């Protein structure tokens, strides 16, 4: 009996925080979604579930979702390819390889805000090294906001893939070499399948990062031009005065997160090789 009390004491701090800052806001969002804000959020009118239908099928949600998915498509494959490329290049017994490994993982030291500021001026039409007007181009704005993420994710992708490569037993590669497999075939037929759990993990992490993207968009394009780079999270943050619509968008994001998580594990898990299981 004493143990139960002690266990609850140990769990209490986390439980309180989770209730107050995770579950309570979420439950309130479910409720607020049924109220429509009037007069700029000063009062609310009950409209029931119709607001869900209205917003989730409207441009606010679908555009945001489209931009979020595009952002993920810009950043995730690039992160995966760069991570594998750098890790394969740096996973060899050369002298001084540690220095190259340190350089490749160095982008870990930057935050999203830092890398966004760097890229903002790198591509500035007036003072940048690459004087391009991507920020003002509706087709390129989102890509411009994705660039700092691609660069910043590179360090993480490298570190994760390298850890996977280092876990591959040397005997397996040696056997493949003796069987006359060339370097490229070894990579595609042996290494990549063997590290597929690691690649799955990387994809999951990068997709989560992609859907969470906010700072890079606020700093580089601020959603513009004319909303062409407003992702779902960006749109949610813009509704912080309008609890009704904001709540519906948030629930929409929650549903998307659930679906994506589910898809990742059902679709990718099947293709992943987990060794002796």
């Amino acid at each position, binding site marked *: 009996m004493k143990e*139960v009390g*002690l*266990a*609850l004491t*140990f769990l209490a*701090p*986390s439980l309180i*925080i*989770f209730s107050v*800052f*995770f579950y*309570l*806001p*979420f439950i*309130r969002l479910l409720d607020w979604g049924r109220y429509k804000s009037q007069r700029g959020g000063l009062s609310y009118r009950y409209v029931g579930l119709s607001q869900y239908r209205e917003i989730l099928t409207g441009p606010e949600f679908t555009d945001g979702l489209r931009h979020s998915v595009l952002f993920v498509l810009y950043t995730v494959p690039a992160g995966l390819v760069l991570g594998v490329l750098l890790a394969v*290049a740096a996973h060899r017994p*050369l002298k001084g*390889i*540690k*220095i*190259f490994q340190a*350089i*490749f993982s160095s*982008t870990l*030291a*930057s*935050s*999203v*805000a*830092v890398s966004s*500021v*760097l890229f*903002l*001026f*790198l591509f*500035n039409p*007036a*003072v*940048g*090294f690459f004087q391009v007007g991507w920020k003002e181009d509706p087709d390129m704005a989102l890509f411009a906001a994705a660039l700092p993420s691609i660069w910043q994710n590179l360090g*993480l992708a490298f*570190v*994760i893939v390298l*850890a*996977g490569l280092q876990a591959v037993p040397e005997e397996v590669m040696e056997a493949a070499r003796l069987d006359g497999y060339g370097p490229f075939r070894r990579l595609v037929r042996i290494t990549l399948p063997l590290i597929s*759990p*690691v690649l799955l*993990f990387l994809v999951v992490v990068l997709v989560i990062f992609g859907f*969470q993207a*906010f*700072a890079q968009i*606020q700093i580089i394009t601020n959603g513009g031009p004319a909303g062409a780079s407003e992702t779902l999270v960006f749109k*949610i*943050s813009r509704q912080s005065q309008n*609890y009704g619509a904001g*709540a519906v968008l*948030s629930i929409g*994001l*929650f549903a998307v*997160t659930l679906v994506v998580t589910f898809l990742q594990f059902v679709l990718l898990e099947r293709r992943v090789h987990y060794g002796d299981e």
Partner: protein
Amino acid sequence: MATSEAGRGVSRRTVSVAGQYLVLVLLAVVVLAPLLLTVIQAMSPPFLYVEAGKPLHPVHVDWKERTWFTGGLFSVVARTLLALVVFTWINKALVGWDAASARIGLGWRNLLATVGATVVMAVALGPAFGSLHAADGSSEWWILGAMVLVSATLVPAALRPGRSPGAAVVESLAVGSLVTGAAVVFVGGVVWTQAWSSARLGPAMARSMVMTVSITLAQVVTAVLAAYAFAFMRFPFKRVLFALFMATLLLPLEVTLIGNIALIRQLGWINTMPALILPFTASAFGTFLIRQGFRGIPPEINDATRLDGYGHFAFLTRFAVPLTRPVIASFTVISALQAWNQYLWPASVVSDDRYNTLQFQLRSIIGNNVANANVSIAAAMVAAVPVLILLIAFQRQIIRGLTAGAVK
């Protein structure tokens, strides 16, 4: 016949090794390109009226610092010390001098390279900066002299047995001049101090520091306690409670953002520290990770301590935590990194620039004034320095933490 075959094998291997290095160097340049280009941008004030339409370029580097101590944490003195620490670390890595091999590898050569070259650089940078202050045109010679001196100190360590003297000299020259040059750029350039003071990075960094330390400490404590309960204690509804913990992973900040902002407004906590800290003082990820660590403790240890009359609290503090220190360390570093890099939440609950955290401060200083572009860029790079130090100091923990979910 046999010898020529062997000779061809060797030369082919040499070519292949050289090719691998070439690829690595190319990749390193690509990875570092944004950084190198922005350093150049930071060092070069834009002359919009003179060179309209041309990118920033390092034509005029303002070297003159007011005094050595202005800029607080980012004064020339602090920066010199930082440069020396980084240099020592690079040296250590180069000569392969770590704690494990200290007994075998610590000859006078390695000692001279690591300690001697650091001291030489510290001494040689003095007159180099002095000449920059004096602006009498002798700076290049002082800087070149410093480079040669530092390189010369590195030669004995690079001259390992079975190594051609030429290669050793080239390696020492490359490392010595690169590091000394970097030290001059990062310590001598006035733009770093400018960025530090005009962007008010000091107070913002202090707030970020308080926020990060509080969040990290709280997360580690709450996660260790909860993980212990889940790993070693029996209580009703354990599975339900664990599921309740893990389900919070499906409620990222982005989903509950509106609800949390409303809550903070109702509490009247806008622009306060509690608003920045409290929502993040528990972590389901940390609970999970540390619980996995606790489960790796052999049950015999638990049984033995029970027989010895240890209670839960004594077992937790004397056995469970010390035995899982690597896992807890990894989680601590990851948690600190996340807290430090937060952006969306500070941007949502801070409405007054005076209460900005560092990351969000970066955004408010960009403005539209391209004439200050170099200061903004410098500010962004200065903002990355604490993480860089963390990364260098806790490389192993960070990498273990980042890959915790990836490699079993």
